[in-house]
């Protein structure tokens, strides 16, 4: 293996580890925002009740509930959705690491699902409240991912 190929393999492995770490971090941060600061009438809270962890969840909520007043509302209401979407894109890019055509198809599928949920909420087809910030953040994440993937492709072609 020549040096350029070695650099490529090494950077691919590092990138994969970083993507897994960042994807999981996105999911955990988004999940914690929901668990701590969102309304307890969400479906996930009845799931927590069923698996018997309601009291632990309530303990965490009570501990950090005062921060609610200091955190911007878009962080609580819209950011978890964008983190969820970003996590999906990151994991899909790991799965389709060496196949750009398939990767784009799966990115588009996830993008359509994420936007479809918001549009469904706008027309009251899906339960939940439509929020334009959700749409902007999803579009922002998609745009960022496209730019990131294009830069990666340019760098790989240079090598």
């Amino acid at each position: 293996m020549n040096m350029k190929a070695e650099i490529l393999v090494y950077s691919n492995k590092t990138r994969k580890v970083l993507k897994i770490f960042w994807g999981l971090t996105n999911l955990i941060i988004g999940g914690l925002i929901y668990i701590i600061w969102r309304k307890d009438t969400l479906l996930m809270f009845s799931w927590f009740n069923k698996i018997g962890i309601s009291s632990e969840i309530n303990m965490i909520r009570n501990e950090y509930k005062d921060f609610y007043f200091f955190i911007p509302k878009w962080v609580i209401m819209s950011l978890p959705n964008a983190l969820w979407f970003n996590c999906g894109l990151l994991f899909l890019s790991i799965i389709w690491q060496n196949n750009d055509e398939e990767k784009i198809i799966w990115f588009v599928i996830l993008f359509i699902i994420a936007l479809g949920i918001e549009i469904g909420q706008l027309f009251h087809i899906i339960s939940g409240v439509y929020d334009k910030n959700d749409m902007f953040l999803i579009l922002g994440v998609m745009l960022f991912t496209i730019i990131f993937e294009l830069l990666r492709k340019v760098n790989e072609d240079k090598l």
Partner: protein
Amino acid sequence: MNNSYKHFVSVILIVILCILGFGSKGRDKTDKEVAFITCKKYVREELKLPDSAIFPNYEDVEVTDSKSNIYEIVSYVQALNYYNEKISLEYKCSVKKIDKKKWILINLNFY
């Protein structure tokens, strides 16, 4: 990893993400939950700084229902007073369900 396996993993990933997304959606509230939400609204109206109000979670509140669709809640609220001091107020609230969307206040007392 061959392509068909990758497709399978991608589908599983999207299904998991959809389940997580579905869990973040609301569900229909029970009458007791709506009674608590209605009482919170009336309690807020009585506070000097309503935006500072912090209520306990629904699971920690006892809501009793009686005949004639009347629900009684004994609970507390934490809020800031005019001097920016955090105070805790206990209250007893009774609300009546008229129909699915209409609820009225019967009684609200602070202790």
